[in-house]
């Protein structure tokens, strides 16, 4: 039996605002590509099943699971990881709120949690706590108990709305 494991394809995409062209194994997941090829280790792998949300990244403006998308599917896309999101300052207020409220413990889920929360906050308005909990329910946090995360998102939304 021969394993044809490393068939590759060339992809060109934008990652955190920078153009990237690479040959990648066609079977490589987007998050593995980001972690292994680009050394962007802020996105994490928790389940490789699309359940835990630790690998959440933004692709063409939408929060997606980096473990459920192949790198070759991101050809031509605009990808933003936690590194790029942080650098942009777009969620600096949310990240400050996470820190003050201790909404991260081990921090392994946090980049994905921030990505997912950023999407909710970008939609505008002040979601109620149940809506925030609902929106974050695809991101597993094993440490915090969620309340602090919900507090941080709620406080950020209120501050942005001037309330």
């Amino acid at each position, binding site marked *: 039996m021969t394993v044809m494991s490393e068939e590759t394809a060339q992809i060109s995409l934008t990652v955190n605002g920078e153009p990237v062209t690479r040959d990648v194994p066609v079977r490589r997941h987007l998050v593995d590509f980001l972690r292994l090829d680009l050394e962007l280790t802020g996105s994490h792998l928790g389940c490789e099943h699309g359940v835990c949300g630790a690998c959440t990244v933004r692709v063409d403006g939408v929060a997606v699971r980096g473990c459920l998308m192949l790198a070759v599917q991101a050809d031509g896309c605009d990808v933003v990881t936690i590194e790029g999101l942080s650098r942009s300052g777009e969620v600096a207020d949310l990240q400050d709120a996470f820190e003050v409220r201790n909404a991260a413990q081990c*921090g392994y889920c946090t980049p994905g949690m921030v990505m997912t929360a950023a999407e909710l906050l970008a939609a505008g308005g002040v979601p109620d706590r149940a809506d925030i909990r609902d929106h974050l329910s695809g991101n597993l946090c094993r440490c915090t*108990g969620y309340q602090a995360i919900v507090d941080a998102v709620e406080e950020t939304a209120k501050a942005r709305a001037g309330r």
Partner: protein
Amino acid sequence: MSAPDGNGGEKLVGTRVPRPNVRRLIHGKGRYTDDISVPGMVHVAFVRSPYGHARIKGIDTSAAAAADGVVRVFTGAEISAVFEPLVSVAGHRPGHKSAPQHVVAVDKVSFQGEPVAAVVADSRANAEDAADLVMVDWEELPVVMGIEEALSPDSPPIFPDLGDNVCFQHTVDTGDAAKALAEAAIVVEHDFEFGRHSAVTLESRSVLADWDPVDGRLDVFQSHQSPYQMQDVYSRHLGIPEHKVRVTTPDVGGGFGLKINVHGDELAAAAISKILCRPVKFTADRIESFLADCQTRDHIATAKLGVDADGRITVMDFENAMSAGAYTAYIRFGLAEGMMAIMSAAAPYSLSDYHGRTRVAYVNKGIVGMFRGVGVPIGCAVTEVLIDKAAAAAKIDPVEFRRKNYHREDAYPLTSVGGYHAYHMSLERCLDACTGIMDYPALRTEQAALREKGVYRGIGVATFVEAAAFGPIYYGPSGARVSTQDGCTVKLEPSGVVRCNTSVTDQGQGTLTGIAQIVADELGIGMDRIEVLAGDSATTPYGGGAWASRGMTIGGEAALRAGRALKENILDLAATILQTSAETLTLAGGEVRDKETGEARMDLAEIGRIGYYRQDTLPPGTQPELMVTRHFVPDAAYYVANGVHGAHVEVDIETGFVNILGWWVADDCGRVINPLLVDEQIRGGVIQGIGNALYEHTQYDAGGQMLNATLADYLLPMAGEMPDIRIAHVETPVPDTQLGANGIGESGTIGAITVLWCAINDALRPLGAEVTKQPFTPEHILNVLAQAQARVRG
């Protein structure tokens, strides 16, 4: 951020200081073990047993060895040539026995997921591809899966050399339980099952081992709670002098006790590095985490409680049995899971007679190791369920029944009937605090009104205890090389800032922030002038790491003593410079100040400048000592923390679903160093306990196959179903330390599991039903409701 900066002389201890080391995690700058790569690194994937019990008749590795990118394929025999098998027998527990465990199986496997071969390749993907090509010739053997079945004399022994499948048993007898039960006015009884579950750290186990044959040195990065323990294990098992082994624990993505265990596959990675003379990385994927991570709980129990005609508890009888998996967990045995259950039972209550027995069985399942709470949730839940049943039988409100039966204030210090030594427990104060914030009477009124409308709400109020911060008496006599001492080094840098190295480790709890607060207070500086480093066996003081909720109690005390000693040295030097006596000086606001007037005499940067660069200006013979180390080991066996949880639930009797409506905690963890972080330890612990009680279950079929080894099948608490939690603190400083902090890490989980049993049974009580099996699935709740209905129909 309203926390004091230390400049005005306010204390940091006791305030809500955010964690300085969390910011980089929030910004994606964490550095977890799998994020680390070194030149020449190769990856290992394990071939794992598909069977619960089987003989390895032969292994053909030729196709795998020839596959793309493969460096080498190892069988268990090759690994065992450099790595002694693990033998985990507790020296102080007569009758305890355990078979030798090869880190990669040699002749047979005893649980599904046990490693049988290791494939090393240039990438994890290539290693996994080749692992599929390893051909093992298996002979399936009969499995032993049930606890009772394993304990029966007819059960075929998994390891014939052991004679049977009984791992260990232990009995605690206080007074005469049989006689007291016979004499009791009321006797209540309940059956319990606590399902086996997994820790599910979001970051899976990961290790990067790098053997340098030139220097004879092993460098290891490992996602672990104790770099010191692992340094010892690698040194002894691989025959490397301890000073040539350095274990670093970078950011760790969740521990919860799982990562204090010793796992064979991680050790195999180090052994392979030593054989190949190159760096080897192993990171468990999710399915191997479910199969090969140490698991927890898996108890069955029957228990009785006897009450006299005045409503006073007189006696408890607790028959417990649990499974250990196929081997006793190395190096800490896992026997505490059963021992703590029978010791912690009835601990809050004043009764005279007790019989507790735990029996531990070997079964063909994953090994039971350490996990948050270690047996105590079982002891507490069994007790509190019986308390509620007895209160109902005695027609006394369950809160008042508890108050009536708690130890009297003048009874301390005391030893509970199960053998828990407690210097104090603030039981009534916690009961008042919890029922106060939950407005218990109002909930009862609402509950009664809603029952009229067919809505079944339950109110649970449950007491918990937590033995925390174990001292040397606990592990010392066992022969296990487990350090209960921790140390702290504090160094004044020349510019007047402070570096601190501690042997306690932080997996997100905030321990290092607490250490910084304590030391900063001693030295009169703000959080901006101190950094705490941890997780490096080569450069930090030797100690225990993180386990048994010890970080603040033991590590915090060591930090306090180190900070205090450095303060003395700084003041001695300042007194020499200022030509005054050290007794007239103190430290505050980053300065040496006159103790009486508060007048600034010199700042710490000036102390550093003279102490390190201008010794020529000092009197001959002056030896500035601006770095000190102190250790602390407790005299006590452990410190008992305690508290009360309140839970409000609604059970949908049509669907069996449980909806959590409210949650309250009154917790006494001694002196609270940082309420922000303590509250989040409690909340995180509660949610984990809710998960354990409502959802989590590692399910095996009768043939030894795990049925739900993915996160899609193994249910965990997500944000949508979880409640907000209100917390009150009661502070009873522990007596033997200057700091006074007690453990907090496990109390949330212990209390949550316990109170959910109580709350759900409270909802079902008018229907004549009660839960007996955790997790409380909708199926189980519908079953007990149907059984109750059948009993009514007769």
